[in-house]
């Protein structure tokens, strides 16, 4: 089976690309690595044989640009298995490419095997409460969960640069605004997250001094984002950011399954919630059944003292 990796170096970084390449090498067969980048990349030379599609606009691509660029790199013949790191590029174009080529698409994949002409992929379902193995026949685009596969150290090769030519503009009057609020969540070692139990925007804000004391980044549940207390960039969950800090503190978060699956990779989980039956306690190493507003003054004193 022909297998290819397709990724945008900037949007996920080098590690997930190497993981996809590692999986491709392990599966065997005819392999090809296709990368998109805004300029020639010194890092790419150390990644083995790569076809590199270069266009300045790929520094911050519009979905239409990224789609056109990927189609030019892929050509007319789609591989039987297209591996993409889970991330912004897959979100924009992964499933659309699959539809274009008449392939199926599966995301959040953490295991892949070949079974003859079929591909068997494992993924989470029901907000992480279950996992399923799906068998794909007739081609599949798979988005790989970061960290699920060992990274490859391919022999040094050469990058063949592919000129992508003019790319469609897509949206007009386009502007992008970076919200730095959740930037550090992915690499934070300590995260303090707040949820609906905090009751108000002021309540959520009260987590700030606590987070500062711990050197923690501030996360939020979907409910806190929907209420407008926190920015969407801070949302932790299967639909927000997946985080894996050494310590995760969930304050006033009931623990909807979609939230739990976003933080299940945390090493130590501490939960504070008024409701002793809150599901968050089943996902926590240490639980405190308490009202945050009564606990916090004492905790502040105890931590300062």
């Amino acid at each position, binding site marked *: 089976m022909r297998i290819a990796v397709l990724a945008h170096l900037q949007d996920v970084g080098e590690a997930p690309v190497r993981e996809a390449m590692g999986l491709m090498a392990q599966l065997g067969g005819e392999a090809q690595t296709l990368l998109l980048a805004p300029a020639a990349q010194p890092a790419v030379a150390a990644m083995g044989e790569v076809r590199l599609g270069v266009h300045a606009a790929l520094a911050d691509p519009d979905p239409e640009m990224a789609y056109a660029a990927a189609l030019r790199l892929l050509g007319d013949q789609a591989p039987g298995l297209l591996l993409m790191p889970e991330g912004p590029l897959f979100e924009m174009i992964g499933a659309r490419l699959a539809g274009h080529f*008449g392939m199926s698409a599966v*995301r959040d994949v953490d295991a892949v095997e070949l079974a003859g002409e079929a591909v068997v992929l494992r993924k989470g379902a029901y907000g992480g409460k279950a996992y399923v193995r799906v068998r794909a026949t007739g081609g599949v685009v798979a988005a790989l969960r970061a960290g699920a596969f060992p990274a490859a150290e391919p022999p040094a090769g050469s990058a063949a640069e592919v000129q992508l030519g003019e790319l469609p503009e897509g949206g007009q009057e386009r502007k992008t605004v970076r919200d730095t609020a959740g930037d550090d969540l992915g690499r934070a070692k300590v995260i303090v997250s707040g949820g609906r139990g905090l009751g108000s925007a002021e309540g959520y804000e009260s987590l700030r001094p606590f987070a500062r004391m*711990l050197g923690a980044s501030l996360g939020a549940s979907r409910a806190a984002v929907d209420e407008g207390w926190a920015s969407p960039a801070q949302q932790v969950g299967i639909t927000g950011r997946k985080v894996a800090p050494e310590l995760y503190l969930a304050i006033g978060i009931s623990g909807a399954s979609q939230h739990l699956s976003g933080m299940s990779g945390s090493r*130590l*989980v501490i939960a504070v919630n008024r409701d002793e039956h809150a599901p968050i306690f089943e996902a926590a190493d240490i639980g405190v059944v308490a009202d945050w507003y009564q*606990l916090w003054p004492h905790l502040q004193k105890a931590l300062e003292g």
Partner: protein
Amino acid sequence: MRIICFLKAILDPEAPPGAIRFAGKVESGEVATVLGPFEGNALELSVQIAQASAGGFVAVAMGDAAQDIALRKALALGAERAVRVDAPAGFQDPLAVARRLKAAAEEAGGADVYVFGRQAGDWDMGVTAGLFAGLMDLPFAPLVQHAEVVGANLRLRREIAGGYEESLRVAPLVVSVTNGPLTLMRLPKVKDVMLANRKPIDVLQAAAEPSLEIAEIAQAQVTRQGRMITGDAAQQAAGLAAELRRFLVAGGGN
């Protein structure tokens, strides 16, 4: 603008842990079927675009009669028509789903904007909108947080890594909608809910061969053995502070 809004009713994702069991199949027990949360966001965006453009929307779902709960919600919020693509309950190959939804869209006369939720909270596939765009050969704008009607076009705000993108997009196009303060689903009036219950739901037959099937489904092991810190607030705070100190002294922290 003409809008087609694709909906899905799923087992309540807020059901407590353990209420749904997974052992070779999904055992739903007493868990209710509800409109998927992101489909609620998609429905809200459809209502907003329809109202701002003096247009209308058709609601489409796929599955058995359990899907009618989603379609009735759309009818209560002003959908002109509700269509259910008939299919058995349970997992469906997203590519086959997209093919059948395409048939439904064509039967409904097409649209300027095709609106999906970002991801249905049962199988968490999150690919149907993109597959549909690929099959229709239409532009695709994922993770829309807000849409403003500008003449025959839409100014879309989309979530991107670490922020948002705004741009003017030309119809026809496919969008997927994410959650946020601007796409919180409004509640229908009681009178409209009553009226919606009497409106017809058109059932459409459309076939597509699946190329993806479930080989195994099993319970994920996520539960931790939690230890509770008890006592009054001062005692709990002291216990928690001790744990935090132990963590920080052990070299944890940023």
